């Protein structure tokens, strides 16, 4: 077991990080619902959360920022800025969608994004990641499962 863990350290850490992220987003959704019901509009809550969420990351990355500003190519910064903008786009359009249609319809459709990731990776970054049938079938099962859970909760 120990040998296997050492040999697959990157993969174990990567999947572990993804699961922690899912737990964070999943728990955050419960807290977000409470905020939107009782305290603030989604847009104001998201804006404040983005600012507040930046502060711990500023502490975590402060030792490396100056060095990275000097050494990281501009293209990487542009790509990361686009990642931030695309994510903000996603959040904004999700709020707009919820305003237009029931959550039971919007949430499963918004949840198909892993399938879009697979399509985009295949179209633009084929050489970076191997897309296997297990990846595609796994994504279809998760997207379908999340849709069923959403329908079951409504």
């Amino acid at each position, binding site marked *: 077991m120990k040998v296997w863990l050492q040999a697959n350290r990157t993969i174990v850490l990567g999947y572990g990080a993804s699961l922690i992220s899912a737990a*964070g987003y999943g728990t955050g959704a419960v807290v977000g619902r409470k905020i939107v019901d009782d305290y603030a509009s989604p847009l*104001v809550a998201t804006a404040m959360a983005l600012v507040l969420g930046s502060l711990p990351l500023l502490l975590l990355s402060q030792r490396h920022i100056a060095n990275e500003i000097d050494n990281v190519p501009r293209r*990487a910064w542009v790509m990361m800025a686009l990642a931030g903008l695309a994510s903000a786009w996603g959040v904004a359009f999700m709020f707009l969608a919820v305003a237009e249609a029931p959550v039971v319809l919007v949430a499963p459709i918004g949840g198909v994004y*892993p399938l879009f990731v697979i399509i985009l*990776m295949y179209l633009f970054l084929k050489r970076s990641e191997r897309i296997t049938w297990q990846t595609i079938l796994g994504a279809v099962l998760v997207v379908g499962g999340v849709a069923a*859970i959403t329908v079951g909760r409504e």
Partner: protein
Amino acid sequence: MTGILLALSAALGFAASAVFARVALRQIRVTTGTLFSLVVGAAVVLVIAVALHPSEFVQIGIIGFLWILLYSFLNFPVGRLFNFTGVQLVGASRASTIISASPLFTMVLAISIGGESVNLPIVLGTLAVIAGCGLIVSQR
């Protein structure tokens, strides 16, 4: 129909974010990259929020602020930092699929704390999510 198109646009935004992050994280540390993506996102969302709801920021109160603080911690230092760490280590397609299972955690909380009941679609959905994640994790 408008709601469906807007939800698809949202999904495309989330997907594009993972793909752009995948490219950028080859050259930027994950903490710095996450911070930079948050600052860019915050700048855009803050401008829109201030323009549309200027008075709301001062009306939230201490308790509301504390809830938003908790929300920000769960979504960004936890959610997005580990999201980008996963994207960097196992790739965008696999990490995004695992991360998209987050409603499973919401459901567990809703059942254990909120007292929601379990029904057939929830059981089948949970099994499908576990099977899908298992299939992805079991790849060599």
